[in-house]
């Protein structure tokens, strides 16, 4: 069967003021009809530019310098803009990452979809709108006809992405290009959207190109994968083969950097040193060589081409890892195994000590005002009665999706918000009530790490001053002593001493996170609240930061409250996990128990929705997940807040709010009338079958 799309030796250049970036430097791919090709890579790998090149949607300064692209045997690269327009939205559809900014905010959803139809078909306005309603129904939007006249901002994130998909599919294209389609969405919604795309692909007989940085998404959705690095393809093969037997050192390194695999053994993550090369002046030789643990001199001189022993599996490396066709193992593979275990096996804090922080019935409401006088018409219940304990020396992971209140809890801990009710006991002090001098004094015990380091570091201050500031404010030490502390801390977080002179913008993303962490450590706190510290980082950089945080926790005896939406990371790092939904703590307990034997249906749904980098496991998850949309936080559902999306909900769930009940001796609790596990000390048949 001839491939639907063929890309041959594509070179895409972007002309910038400082030079020409060779964003795509010799990429060849093909997509068969009806299959999903995944293109995976980190930022700067060229995956998005490859996708944009197909339809010539390159940004200003970008152009295809060489190579050809064929669709169904016809050449589509090098066409005039007018000819290309016939293909865009017609034979090829594309969806983008952020559905909020990717939709015109001042045009109704119906008109935007109808526009796609009218551009390519000779139809009347009504017919186009009818088609729009039809397509909206196809993507799973309830009551599509009524929603045609609404505007994008009136839809939720997941709904907006469905609208985008509808728009891309309105003319039944042969190929759908999806560029990070779910990165901006909650994990449960992500699963819905990915399933939708998959379902539509089968129904419409379409091919899909899925561009993403998330290996879990690839594992679950792609038939074949191409791994890109620095503008070239490092390895390409079927998904099962890639995960089972990666041959390129970069692919292998990526897998070793994922917390998924390491979670059970709790071993140190492999972090790839260095950074991707400068694509204005690409290096001679293999582009990954400077960061490769197996690199030889030869690798730096000559650039390896894609080759392989079987047709279906090619990679660009002179000294590949993994198993060869002949069943033998090459020497470097052994080195890899050795490299992994050389780090200390016991790399986590031991048994947690006594309770350092306990919240009880914590409540935070945000007022919603409207009207002339800005009267309070209601409130958003961001945190609605949350109680949990954090023990000394442990990591408590707080996980949940957007709107669950985890960030608010973090802010309540450090006084960036004032609690509406409830207590936060830190030793003998109630944090919820302190202010003024006592509050300032307490800062020496509890510190905070912001999510976005770039925004949390004053761009006008040098790193040295930023790090010294906590001590200056608290009046600790002389200037000399402060500077010495700073130098010491920089070493702790793995930054060079010369950093003190630099400004935040001169650091990379990962380095800024380290700076943020260093600042949090300057006052030698007992407890650090970290809000999404690694969410914005590439996998390899994420591994570096996580390793640093674990090591420092062990060395300095720190306690962490680790807030994240990423279950894999939370599971890897945490001793205890708390799962939040719409302001409520629905499940809490030791990490392994919560993850392996979740009692709450939402936790189960969360675990099932989160993509794991294992194709076999992903395929097994076909039916699971969480349906529906997040309800409004201003008017949350009565009784159990999760009942609107829960497959086990009964009448009692709407009337009575379920209390937290214990499920084990180790403190595993969940709030559900019909939990998935058998609660402790309850012999009744209320419990549903564990799934």
């Amino acid at each position, binding site marked *: 069967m001839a491939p639907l799309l063929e890309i041959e030796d594509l070179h895409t250049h*972007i002309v*910038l*003021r400082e030079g020409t*970036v060779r*964003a795509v430097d010799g990429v060849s791919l093909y997509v068969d009809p009806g299959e999903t090709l995944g293109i995976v890579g980190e*930022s*700067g790998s060229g995956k*998005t*530019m490859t996708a944009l090149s197909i339809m010539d949607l390159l*940004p*200003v*300064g*970008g152009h295809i310098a060489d190579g050809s692209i064929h669709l169904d045997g016809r050449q589509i690269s090098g066409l005039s803009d007018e000819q290309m327009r016939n293909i865009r939205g017609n034979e090829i559809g594309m969806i983008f990452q952020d559905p909020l900014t990717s939709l015109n905010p001042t045009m109704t959803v119906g008109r935007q979809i109808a526009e796609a139809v009218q551009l390519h078909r000779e139809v009347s306005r009504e017919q186009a709108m009818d088609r729009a309603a039809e397509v909206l129904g196809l993507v799973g939007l309830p009551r599509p006809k009524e929603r045609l006249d609404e505007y994008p901002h009136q839809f939720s994130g997941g709904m907006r992405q469905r609208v985008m998909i509808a728009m891309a599919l309105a003319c039944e294209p042969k190929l759908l290009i999806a560029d990070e389609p779910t990165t901006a969405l909650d994990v449960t919604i992500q699963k819905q959207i990915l399933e939708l795309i998959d379902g539509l692909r089968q129904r419409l007989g379409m091919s899909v190109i899925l561009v993403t940085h998330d290996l879990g998404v690839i594992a679950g959705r792609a038939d074949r994968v191409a791994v890109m690095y620095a503008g070239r393809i490092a390895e390409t093969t079927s998904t099962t083969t890639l995960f089972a037997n990666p041959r390129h050192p970069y692919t292998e390194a990526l897998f070793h950097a994922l917390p998924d695999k390491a979670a059970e053994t709790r071993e140190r993550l492999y972090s790839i040193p*260095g*950074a*991707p*090369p*400068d*694509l204005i002046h690409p290096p001679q030789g293999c582009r990954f060589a*400077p960061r490769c643990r197996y690199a030889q001199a030869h690798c730096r001189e000559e650039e390896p081409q894609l080759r392989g022993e079987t047709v279906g599996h090619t990679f660009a490396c002179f000294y590949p890892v993994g198993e060869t066709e002949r069943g033998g193992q090459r020497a470097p593979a052994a080195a890899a195994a050795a490299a992994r275990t050389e780090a200390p096996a016991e790399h986590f804090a031991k048994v947690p000590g006594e309770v350092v922080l306990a919240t009880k019935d914590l409540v935070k409401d945000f007022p919603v005002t409207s009207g002339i006088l800005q009267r309070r018409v209601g409130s958003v219940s961001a945190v609605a009665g949350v109680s949990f304990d954090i023990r000394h020396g442990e990591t408590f992971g707080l996980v949940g999706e957007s709107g669950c209140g985890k960030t608010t809890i973090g802010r309540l801990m*450090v*006084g*960036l918000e004032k609690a509406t009710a409830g207590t936060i006991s830190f030793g003998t002090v109630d944090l919820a009530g302190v202010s003024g001098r006592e*509050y*300032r*004094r307490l*800062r*020496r015990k509890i*510190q*905070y790490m*912001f999510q*976005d380091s*770039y*925004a*949390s*570091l*004053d*761009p*006008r201050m*040098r790193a040295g001053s930023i790090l010294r*500031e*906590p001590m200056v*404010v*608290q009046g600790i030490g002389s200037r000399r002593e402060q500077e010495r502390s700073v130098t010491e801390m920089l070493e702790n977080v793995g*930054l*060079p001493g*010369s*950093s003190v*002179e*630099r*400004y935040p*913008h*001169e*650091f*990379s*993303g990962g*380095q800024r996170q380290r700076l943020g962490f260093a*600042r949090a450590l*300057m*006052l030698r706190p007992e407890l650090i609240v970290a809000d999404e510290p690694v969410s914005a980082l590439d996998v390899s950089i994420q591994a570096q930061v996580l390793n640093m945080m674990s090591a420092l926790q062990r060395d300095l005896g720190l306690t962490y409250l680790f807030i994240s939406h990423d279950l894999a990371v939370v599971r890897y790092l945490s001793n205890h996990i708390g799962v939040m939904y719409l302001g409520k703590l629905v499940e809490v307990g030791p990490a392994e128990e919560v993850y392996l034997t979740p009692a709450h249906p939402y936790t189960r749904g969360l675990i099932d929705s989160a993509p794991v980098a294992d194709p076999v496991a992903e395929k097994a998850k076909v039916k699971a997940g969480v349906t529906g949309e997040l309800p409004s936080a201003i008017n949350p559902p009565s009784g159990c807040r999760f009942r609107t999306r829960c497959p086990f909900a009964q009448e009692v769930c709407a009337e009575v709010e379920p209390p937290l009940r214990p499920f084990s001796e180790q403190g595993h609790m969940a709030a559900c009338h019909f939990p998935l596990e058998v609660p402790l000390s309850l012999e009744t048949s209320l419990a549903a079958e564990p799934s």
Partner: protein
Amino acid sequence: MTMMIPPSEETPGAGLAEQELIVPELAEQDSALTAAEAQERGLAPSVKSRSMLRRGWEVFRENKLALASLGLALFMIGFCFLGPLFYHTDQVHTNLENVLCPPSASHPLGCDNVGYDVLGRLMIAGQTSIEVGVAAAVVAVLFGTLYGALAGFVGGPLDSLMMRLVDAGLSIPYITVLIILSVIFHPNKITMIFVIAAFYWLAVARLIRGETLTLRTREYVQAVKVIGGRKSRAITRHIVPNAIGTIIVQGTFAVADAIIILAGLGFLGLGVQPPDTDWGTMLSGGLTYLQSSQSYWWLIYPAGICIILICIAFNFIGDALRDAFETRLQRR
């Protein structure tokens, strides 16, 4: 005559900002080999880190137009303040013999309607225009910044009240009130400074308040609280330094606007009174003799062109300053 600030100009040579926005993936590219990492890996020696001000100055320097404008502004200032030292004319006593004399060797730009030498008068008028313009701008920006920063930082009902007052002030067509005030108070340089500043500060206050509001929500300001710092520290050490850029840019535009406002009042005969003069007052002479049988072009062009030149210069400088502060801040 406007009190509007020109929108951000993509000055040539600084067009990178736009492209940086389109290609987010490449942002990592640009910072991929930062000086720090290069040093880590033993590659090229580290580049000396430069402060905001230094980098801003470098961007400014690259902008040819801005440099030319700076030169022009300095030239005009020199012309007005140093010129009379080299070119002596009597600007106090009228000379009715020379009324409306056309340009000649002894009077390169002719004489005006009471016999003053126009070229010399141009310098004196320039002194007034520039002094009042700069002073009014400084007063307006100082007061407007304090007021706006206070309102923005305090927030709540006090902020609302303060801004209602500013809105009220901005709703009054300033020209009518300026005219009325000029009629009431016989204007001299000092009163003109305060009269003009009395209106201009409103626009500045609104702008600075907006800026303060934005900065207040920045996480690095919140971080001050987390490390135990007081509000005063947040304002003085973090908000003000980051707002300085905006303040300076506004101040530069304010000078140009103030000069034009003063010229307008002078043109109507309501500005500074003889023997003081400013470029606008000189132009009122041009109006009187506009319809006569012969053209008294030297009453019109010199003063007008001076206004245009200095205002263009300050506008370009302000624009370049804005680019210098903004592009560098955006760069990741």
